[in-house]
């Protein structure tokens, strides 16, 4: 693989309802901020990838809403309908195919659609949709499968919520910085057994952008380049009943490929910090198992042993993660941006000391059907 780097990043504060901003307004803001961050102008960027979803936006060809706002008028522009980690991967492919610099922008307004209806649309129209199953209730099925298989208690996964909402206090972009206890999580309202309110992400509005460039541009940018060391994605079967929901096989495969590309042999030793997409608390330990940071079933012990907390061997979601703000699609790009800020040493109060190699992960589809894993580093 030729060398390419993340050279510019931008996010806006994630909020429950950004009533004053249309999609284009949010994208215009992050586009300009990412350019400023990189020390580039719109003329230095020769192509664009937008990230959006027609169901969430309530608009066919949802990418059309933001073409002007990301400077795409006279450029090769395309739209990835999926998580921002996938959109960024497509942006990277374009750079490695000869483009100088790609800007990848993602937008989402959870406040504008009905998330139960739009995520119900992920399920099979003939056999499953009428059951009313959606992102939350399918996650509850997965949580149950996972907890039952390994004898995990609700208190164990509640720790994730406590940790991540606490971490969010150090992240100015987070929507829900909170001081809470396991008891608070346990007492919160039941949403879908075994998930309680504080096990679930909020509904969020937001946008984010990254600029990915080749070595020539990276050398000229204002900030320290964050080099892409490995990326891979993988998808498993569709019907929930055809899957082992407690074993994220697609994530395992994507991680294996990304690690091979990056030359990572022992992830827990070689990776300094991870940002994973955990809109539900149980997902963080489950994904950490899939990523090979521990044995299957041992995900929750990583918190108990102090490994994934700030100051631990492998801090996970110093940003507060998706539990603290979940602008869908944007949320995966936010993981990549947060990982990049860690590598740069610019993560402020949420900075992990001496972070050089970072992992970011995002997914598409119900219960994490299709995952994308990034390894980025300050070392070329």
């Amino acid at each position, binding site marked *: 693989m030729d060398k390419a780097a993340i050279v510019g990043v931008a996010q806006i504060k994630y909020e429950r309802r950004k009533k004053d901003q249309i999609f284009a307004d949010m994208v215009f803001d992050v586009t300009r901020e990412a350019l400023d961050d990189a020390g580039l102008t719109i003329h230095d960027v020769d192509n664009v990838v937008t990230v959006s979803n*027609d169901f969430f936006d309530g608009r066919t*060809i949802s990418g059309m809403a933001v073409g002007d706002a990301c400077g795409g008028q*006279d450029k*090769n522009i395309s739209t990835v*309908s999926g998580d921002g980690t996938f959109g960024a991967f497509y942006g990277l*492919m*374009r*750079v490695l195919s000869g483009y100088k610099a790609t800007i990848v922008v993602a937008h989402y307004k959870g406040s504008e659609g009905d998330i139960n209806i739009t995520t119900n*649309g992920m399920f099979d129209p003939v056999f499953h949709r009428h059951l009313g199953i959606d992102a939350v209730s399918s996650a509850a099925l997965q949580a149950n499968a996972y907890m039952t298989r390994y004898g995990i208690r609700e208190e164990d996964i509640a720790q994730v919520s406590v940790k991540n909402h606490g971490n969010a206090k150090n992240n100015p972009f987070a929507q829900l910085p909170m001081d809470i206890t396991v008891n608070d999580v346990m007492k919160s309202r039941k949403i879908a057994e075994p998930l309680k309110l504080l096990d679930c992400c909020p509904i969020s509005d937001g946008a984010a952008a990254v600029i990915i460039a080749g070595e020539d541009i990276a050398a000229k940018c204002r900030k320290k380049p964050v080099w892409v060391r490995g990326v891979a994605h993988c998808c498993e079967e569709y019907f929930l009943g055809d899957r082992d929901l407690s074993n994220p096989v697609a994530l395992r495969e994507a991680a294996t490929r990304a690690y091979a590309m990056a030359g990572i042999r022992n992830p827990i030793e070689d990776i300094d910090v991870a940002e994973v997409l955990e809109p539900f608390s149980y997902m963080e330990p489950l994904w950490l198992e899939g990523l090979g940071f521990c044995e299957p079933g041992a995900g929750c012990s990583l918190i108990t042993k102090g490994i994934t907390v700030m100051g631990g061997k492998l801090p996970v979601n110093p940003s507060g993660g998706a539990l603290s703000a979940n602008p869908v699609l944007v949320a995966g790009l936010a993981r990549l941006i947060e990982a990049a800020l860690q590598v740069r040493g610019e993560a402020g109060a949420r900075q992990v000391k001496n972070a050089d190699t970072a992992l970011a992960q995002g997914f598409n*589809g119900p219960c994490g059907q299709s995952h994308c894993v990034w390894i980025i580093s300050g070392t070329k």
Partner: protein
Amino acid sequence: MARRVAIVGTGQTYHKSHRPDVTSREMIKEAVSSALADAELTIRDIDAIVIGNMDHFESINYVDTYSVEGSGGVMKPIMKVTTGGTTGATVAIAAYYHVSSGFFDRVLAIGFEKNSESDTTGAIITCSDPVWDRFSYSGAIPSLATEATAYMEKYGATQEDAALIAERDRGHAMNNPYAHLRRPLTVADIMASPMLAYPIKLGDICPRSDGACAIVLAADGIAQKITGKPAWFKAAAVRHTYTWFGDSTDYNKGLVSMQRASKDAYAQAGITKPVDEIDVAELYLPYTWAGLKWIEDIGFCGPGEASKFVGDGHTHMGGKLPINPSGGVISTNCIGATALLRVAEAAIQVMGKGDTRQVPDVRNAIATGFGGCFWSDIVILSSERP
């Protein structure tokens, strides 16, 4: 640096107005199986998949994850890209970068649509801005009708000039066993067909079809081992110029996105005289006037000259630059697959697999996609390794 990429196999379903015998997934499977068979590969040989359609036509969210049984994407990398009418070309171009970047050696690109599963015009209307345009907008036809009116007023083109485009493409479709509408249509038939929105009559516009298309792309060094005659990418250009419907309507400028994308594409391919250097074109012409106005914007003839250029037979089979040997969009239109069919048909011509619709000795073929807010995507394929 970027690797050279070629198309090494294509596949498509038979196209019909309604395929109640299959789900989208099963329809996709038909196209994928046929593309793999054409390349003499199995799904195990495929490293990654790109898929696209338009969500609200079937009302499926996350089609990439929904479709894996049909696409063959189980335990493979799959990504969804979607840009409206241009989706098929967008998918092909994304697959091109998947290979060109060095990440994947053999990639499958899939476009599909089951237009029968929703009210097509109702679904298209949802692409208009909900605040400003959706109340008055009535789908693709009126915006195209306004473009046609402006063109006729400016250059004196007649409705009969436009009708000749449909007569040509529907005639060509007789040679394509996969085409949806395989019944010849004459200029007189088109003139006598019901007026939908002046000056567009039923015979002037594309049908809505159910169907899927898939192509297999491979990297330099691998492509040659798969087939003796790969269709090499010489250019991939995209311009999605406008964001607002109201900004895209200076008809005196022509189809700006097509002008810009073709300029970019010709520069990439080293083409200076398109009519002399391109042997066949598969153009996304959703209605007849596009077959006049847009071939000016793509540089096949000068402004206002299209009626004569087409009338003289240059774009018919046997002419110097045959357009749409497949019958084009006027004969088959499964929207998310439509632009990919253009790329696939261009590849078929380069690979010499066109059978009764084959243009002799094709070296360079051009394919276009049209959609969104008067957007254009262009791919140039060649029998010569660039």
